[in-house]
């Protein structure tokens, strides 16, 4: 397995980077001016995701308050009235402490790519306290990860006319596709301090994944009320296909590429073959400055690698060819694994899907683009089987076909090269 770099996924934060990437009560976002009407309105109509629910001790306290209040009015006993007042004051104190606890705390999401199906990935939440001397205790963080690929043709529908069972089934399906996790803040977040909370996630499907910090919850200080603050903080990530184990078959004659052709990783070993025009993505170290100056054209040096036999991968996603979803998923995983292995060996030249023009793979960035592409590819209804420029070469082209009802076979120029 190669260690691949990946650009940081986009975090949905309008503020961009730096200090403004923080959100939460202590975030850099401009605070709204306090108004009493705003407070009352917030109590009547809380913000999306904000919830305050009584816990078991809270229900006991409320029941106790009701009981004592009833007894106080029934007996006109000031002892009971003062006890009732104290209980109500404790509830108020609980609210004030809860507010103090969350005040000044800010957070931001950080992902540690790459994400792969079946592999643990870490979703990190960085926390920082802006408080001067009040520490923060007892928070927990609700994370959710759900596929972000919009199914074509789907739109919002009213559930008023739907059957209950159908709605429940739809909800269950949505929940099944969703991964959820809760991570507590162990210990205390000191004033002015920072900490990091990590959620270990294991994606089950390839594709675009939307990771969300659903809410920040707390029972602090006395556990009477469970307070959840909806954050709406999201991060998008691409989940690459799972690597699979496959069997290689000896290919009788892999054609050596003709001289002058580009290799997967220019500049690695071998003799200088020729100069060629600079193509976007070439390493700047390979630029032949003298020749470029002479010809007034940017030219790069071209070498012959030791393993010069390169392959082009041509993936056909025709739904007619791949009618079974699980076999299609296996195909994608197989292609991704082969692509990585060939790249590691410097044997991957080009990649293409259906009739799209082939994409040369020279750098890690190109491979990542290809894996991203594989992560989101779906069976195409009427895929064009003409592989663009690949038809020109027609050498060392790796294609894939179903092997029985489950397997997949890779062919190179008509010879069986690998299977899974």
């Amino acid at each position, binding site marked *: 397995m190669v260690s691949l770099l990946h650009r940081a996924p986009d975090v949905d934060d309008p503020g961009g980077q730096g200090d403004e990437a923080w959100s939460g009560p202590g975030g850099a976002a401009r605070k709204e001016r306090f108004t009493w009407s705003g407070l009352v309105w917030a109590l009547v109509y809380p913000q999306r995701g904000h919830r305050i629910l009584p816990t*078991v*001790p809270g229900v*006991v306290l409320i029941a*106790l308050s009701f009981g*004592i209040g009833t*007894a106080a*009015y*029934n*007996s*006109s*006993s*000031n*002892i*009971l*009235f*003062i*006890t*009732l*007042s*104290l209980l*109500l*004051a*404790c509830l*108020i*104190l609980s609210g*004030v*402490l809860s507010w103090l606890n969350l005040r000044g705390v800010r957070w931001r999401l950080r992902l540690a790519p790459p994400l792969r199906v079946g592999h643990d990935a870490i979703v990190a939440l960085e926390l920082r306290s802006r408080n001067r*001397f*009040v*520490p923060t*205790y*007892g*928070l*927990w963080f609700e994370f959710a990860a759900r596929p972000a690929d919009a199914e074509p043709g789907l739109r919002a529908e009213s559930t008023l006319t739907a059957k209950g069972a159908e709605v429940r089934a739809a909800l269950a399906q949505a929940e099944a596709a969703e991964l959820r996790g*809760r*991570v*507590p*803040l*162990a*210990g*205390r*977040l*000191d004033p002015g*301090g*920072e*900490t*990091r*909370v*990590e959620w*270990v996630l294991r994606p089950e499907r390839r594709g675009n994944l939307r990771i969300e910090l659903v809410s920040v*919850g707390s*029972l*602090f*200080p*006395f*556990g*009477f009320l469970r307070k959840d603050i909806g954050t709406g903080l999201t991060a998008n990530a691409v989940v690459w296909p799972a690597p699979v184990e496959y069997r290689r078959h000896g290919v009788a004659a892999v054609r050596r590429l003709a001289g002058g052709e580009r290799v997967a990783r220019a500049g690695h070993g071998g003799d200088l073959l020729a100069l060629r025009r600079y193509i976007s993505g070439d390493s700047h170290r390979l630029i032949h400055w003298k020749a470029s100056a002479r010809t007034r054209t940017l030219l790069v040096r071209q070498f012959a690698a030791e393993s010069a036999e390169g392959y082009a991968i041509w993936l056909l996603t025709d739904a007619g060819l791949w009618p079974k979803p699980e076999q299609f998923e296996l195909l994608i995983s197989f292609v991704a694994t082969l692509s990585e292995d060939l790249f590691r060996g410097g044997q991957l030249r080009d990649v293409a899907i259906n009739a799209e023009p082939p994409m040369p793979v020279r750098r890690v960035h190109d491979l990542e683009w290809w894996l991203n592409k594989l992560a989101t590819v779906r069976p195409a209804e009427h895929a064009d089987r003409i592989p663009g420029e690949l038809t020109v070469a027609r050498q060392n082209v790796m294609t894939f076909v179903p092997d029985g009802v489950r397997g997949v076979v890779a062919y190179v120029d008509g010879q069986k090269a690998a299977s899974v």
Partner: protein
Amino acid sequence: MTTPVARRPQLSPDELQQLKWLLGGLLTLLGVGTVLYMDIDAWVLTGLTVAATLATLLRPELPGRVPRWVHALAFPAIAAFFAGDLWLKMELLPAMVRLDILLLIYRNLSYRQRRDDLQIIVLGLFLVIVAGVLTVSLTFAGHLLVYTACSLAMLLVITLGDAAQVGKPEPAQPIRETPSWARHTDWRRLLRRLQEVTDWRVVGLGAALFAGVVGVSALLFLAIPRFQIENSMFLDRFITKKAKSGFTDVIRFGDVSEIQLDTSIALSVDVSDQSQIPVTPYWRMLVLDDYSNGTFRLSGGLRAQFGSERTNSFQTGQARPRLGEKAVWTFYLESGVSRYLPLLGHFDMLRFRESQNYRFAGALALVSLREEPVSMTAYRVEGFDLTTLLPDPVFAERWRRRHEPDQKPVGLQTRLILRDSDHGVLRRTVSEITGGESPGAAEFARRAGEWLRRQHSYSLTPAIPGGDGDPLIRWLVSREAGHCELHAGSFVLLARAAGFAARVVTGFRGGSWNGYSNNFTIRNSEAHAWAEIFDERAGGWLRVDPLAPVVATTGEEPRGEAAVAARLDRSWAARFDSLRVFWYRRIVNFDQRSQAETLKAVKEATQNTGRRLRVALEGAVDNLKVWLTSPWDEVRLVRVAAFVIGVGALGWFLKSVGPGWWRLRLRGFGHRRDDPVRREAGRWLSRLANGEAAEEEAGVIADLQRVRFGARPTWPEPARVFQRAHQALRSRRRRAVSRTGSGSG
């Protein structure tokens, strides 16, 4: 998974568990502590609970050794105990209290889960509230505050400890298995750890917030709307009332003396008009007229005057309404004193805080509650008749017609059931007092009182001579000292022997005037017995206190400021007692009327403050106008300009330098000053600064200065530096000694 970055250490989960266990034990002790003043028979259980709690606090591993069968049988046994208790004693509330204590014991003999900790809080709170409702004592206020603080601390610890377990079911603690936190508990170490992890600023904030809670609860208490649904539920109905001591309608010699030994407060009285306060108030509670074998009883005749039981919140008395505003006397009668209410005589109106079951004897000016109140009883009396004479027109009429054939002498309070020899003794004594004359009731009272005081001194430990006959007459003819009851009883016998109607009255005499809360405080030690003799001419009962000089017959007593000054008490005890009165006035006795008065007072205070502010502002504006319109010369202009520049400069300075300086002070200086290593370095530097420094000390001093003032990452090893400083100091002393030695040699 989290990666905390903390500056101060944090308590580990085991330490949080230990703290929770400690607080649970403390709450248990506080809860069962209420039994001390609740007057419920649960002493054995309380003792067991305290012992079990202390044992498990000192040795938290003990619950792990409790046999399995104890846990299996605990709840069936507790339920059976409760059922048996209820069935045998038929008292719901005491049975519930004992059940509560049993549950508390069990909770301290087993390792608790979250719900068990919450159960301890609720069980303890139940005990505290019941104690408060039953006793209405000031102790309850303190108890409730301490209990609330501990409960909140416990809930906080539970929340912190369970933060990692949110949403997950708590794992059950296996029976007979000691959890890791209980195996090596060291409370001293825990306290040290608490000191380490505690930020005292946060503790200060917490204390301020708790004070805020008390303030907010006081405001809520004042603001909660009051209306009374008929009192159909009250805790004291579920408990049998027991008086701790005091007055009953049958008392024997010595009973009053027992009360006198008790210096606790029996009664507090607020008076709306201090000019009405008599010099020596006599708080009447009970009249005893039937005498036999040295015992005074309330006779059947007088008992009948109490009539049938009434249920009401007010009672009209027999005093004639007077012109002008009536003085209002508010009484706070402590629990366990008596079911007879102390009163100064006839009254116009008596009001209770809430509806009461009572009997009222109008002619006797006595009120008897149905049951002994176990909590403080508050009542308000308007329009007391404060003369020393208790008018009794019905008895006067019967007295006038006493010689008519159909009149029964029993109810006339003249009966003397004595042996002939005792009658003879009494007759001789009366002759000695009257000198053969037939004085009126007042004059007889004066002479008899003088005679008794001449014959007998006052003593709390009387001795009654032995012999045959009535014990009181034996004492009467002796020269033995006696207490008030003997004096009063003897007087009644003498008066009856002389042909007057007389009776013994018990209650309290005097009291002190609390200079802080401005109220009468009457203690149990001021319980007293005196007599009343019927004065035919005045048509009423004349108060006679044989232990005090006889007051004017029917005239009014001196009252007012002189009376207050004579009884003024400004001692520390009075200061404490004033708290109790505040509790009664502002908390226990707070009702709709008080609420309206408070709101009115707040409104008036706000209006007055606003008015004063407005006047002050208007005055300031006028002064400014005058100042502005007065002639401006150069000197004035320069002064004003200098002032404006000065204020501007100060403002600029504060704005630009102030925050930075303050931040520096908060972060830098404060931490440096508080750092124990820096402090230690400072100490060594000051020690080395005294005296002449040698060249080899320069390095040590430089290192010490670095530790004292330098950034922490640049420090050398502090312990090594201090060691070197110590050596340098020792060698310096050695040098000084050798120099002195060589000089003297």
